[in-house]
């Protein structure tokens, strides 16, 4: 594989950049693999990469119905954070933060990781208390957290509404300075390029039509491009989890829901951080191109349409304007939607299943993008070693049966309620 560097850039400039190698190949599926990963999104690509890198398993195929990076990894608001209170979520995410910090070097691909800090605004004394508790929990787990008062917040984001007559005055905030954003497409492409170079077959435009399960063991997978013999399958298909689970006669604690995001026209640099509104559900950051990147609530009903409806967008942007009134003057450039695999306690599932050789990675709700490296790393471990790693022990499928739920947000089973 061609290494990307300043030298290769200069060298290729002499040939007008016509002779770069393809970043990954377009192979025809083989008859048999050691491991098949279904889903060529961030999680699937990262899983294949860590299978090859950490466990030396390279006879691997990634099967993707569309094109790699065309699902949620290309549809999110690129926020990366580990500001969780529960140990399971905090330790898992902070492990991921370490991988994020090293990712550009590790993948030889600039993922433009930008640790610009996330600010969760608080709008009451009670919310400040809650944030102090969460911040303390984070610090006990070695994650940076700073509780800011109103004046400190005003210094960082003076464009927010600090006037006297607002419905939700800003009391302060919890900040995780090491949180940030990254270039989402680069994450998918970086993992794809490295996985491909280590021998992983990335098979696009290939739909899974069924599974061969004999005596409770995976024997193969049937696809639109032929049958493949395989003993281990990793399922990371996010919003399509229920559809594939049905082909396996499984019913999972997951529902498919629609989440929208949008960007404004590009403007000059105004916002250095990621900021979330604490009296509703709205988050915002500014991209390197100057667009304000915004998102918030789910549309709130089961959906597989990758496009949303205007009432939710209006609701979300009303919150944004309440927080930062200047947003009302911006024109909307694009809106889009993605399908979230909403789990019943708001936390993901990375586990083995009752079918031998079938491994499950789903239930990422709103937080799939930031989890890509940690999810790929632990899922690769789970598949390669046939046992969960300590980091994803809490993300078991059986917790819904045993009662060890991870309801970080305390929303009960209706995680789609807004």
């Amino acid at each position, binding site marked *: 594989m061609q290494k990307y560097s300043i030298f290769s850039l200069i060298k290729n400039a002499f040939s007008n950049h016509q002779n770069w190698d393809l970043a990954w190949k377009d192979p025809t599926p083989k008859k048999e693999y050691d491991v098949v990963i279904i889903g060529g999104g961030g999680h699937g690509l990262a899983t294949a990469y860590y299978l090859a890198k950490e466990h030396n398993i390279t006879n691997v195929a990634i099967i993707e119905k569309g094109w790699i990076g065309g699902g949620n990894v290309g549809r999110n608001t690129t926020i990366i954070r580990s500001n969780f209170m529960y140990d399971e979520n905090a330790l898992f995410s902070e492990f991921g933060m370490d991988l994020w910090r090293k990712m550009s070097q590790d993948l030889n691909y600039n993922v433009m990781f930008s640790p610009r800090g996330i600010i969760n605004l608080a709008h009451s004394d009670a919310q400040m208390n809650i944030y102090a508790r969460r911040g303390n929990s984070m610090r006990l787990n070695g994650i940076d957290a700073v509780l800011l008062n109103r004046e400190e917040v005003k210094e960082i984001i003076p464009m927010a509404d600090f006037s006297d007559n607002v419905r939700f005055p800003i009391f302060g905030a919890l900040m995780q300075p090491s949180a940030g954003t990254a270039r989402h497409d680069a994450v998918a492409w970086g993992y794809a390029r490295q996985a491909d170079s280590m021998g992983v077959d990335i098979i696009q435009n290939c739909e899974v039509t069924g599974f061969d399960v004999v005596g409770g063991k995976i024997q193969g997978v049937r696809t639109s491009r032929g049958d493949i013999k395989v003993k281990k399958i990793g399922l990371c298909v996010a919003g399509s989890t*229920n*559809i594939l689970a*049905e082909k396996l006669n499984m*019913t*999972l*604690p*997951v*529902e*498919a829901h629609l989440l929208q995001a949008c960007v404004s026209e590009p403007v000059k640099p105004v916002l250095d951080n990621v900021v979330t509104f604490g009296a509703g559900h709205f988050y915002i950051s500014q991209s390197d191109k100057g667009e304000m990147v915004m998102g918030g609530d789910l549309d*709130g*009903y*089961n*959906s*597989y*349409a990758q496009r949303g*409806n*205007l*009432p939710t967008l209006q609701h979300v942007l009303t919150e944004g304007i309440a927080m930062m009134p200047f947003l009302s003057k911006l024109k909307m450039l694009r809106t889009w939607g993605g399908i979230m695999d909403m789990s*019943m306690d708001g936390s993901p599932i990375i586990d083995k299943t009752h079918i031998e050789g079938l491994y499950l990675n789903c239930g990422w709700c709103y937080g799939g993008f930031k989890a890509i490296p940690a999810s790929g790393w632990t899922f690769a471990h789970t598949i390669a070693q046939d046992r969960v790693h300590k980091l994803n022990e809490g993300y078991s499928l059986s917790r*819904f*049966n045993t009662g060890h739920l991870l309801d970080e947000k305390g929303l009960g*089973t*209706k995680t*789609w309620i807004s």
Partner: protein
Amino acid sequence: MLHIKCPHCGMRSQNEFAYGGDATIKRPELNKEVSDQDWDNFIYNRKSLRGKHKELWHHISGCRQWIKVERDTATHEIFKTVKANEEI
């Protein structure tokens, strides 16, 4: 914007409604032994079908009645709406 025909009030915008989830889920009968699996299926496990989906909606800013709606989860087309105590 979804337009939902409330069987009590007529055609209204989705802004007046709150979503209530899968309408085919039945609570296990009272005063009978319930297996863990049945209870999990009631509380947590969902088919989340792609295509025609029977679901509950609450006309919360209207007549405040629960209704059943049959809607396509891929196209958002609504086929039929009935009162909560009617079969869809």
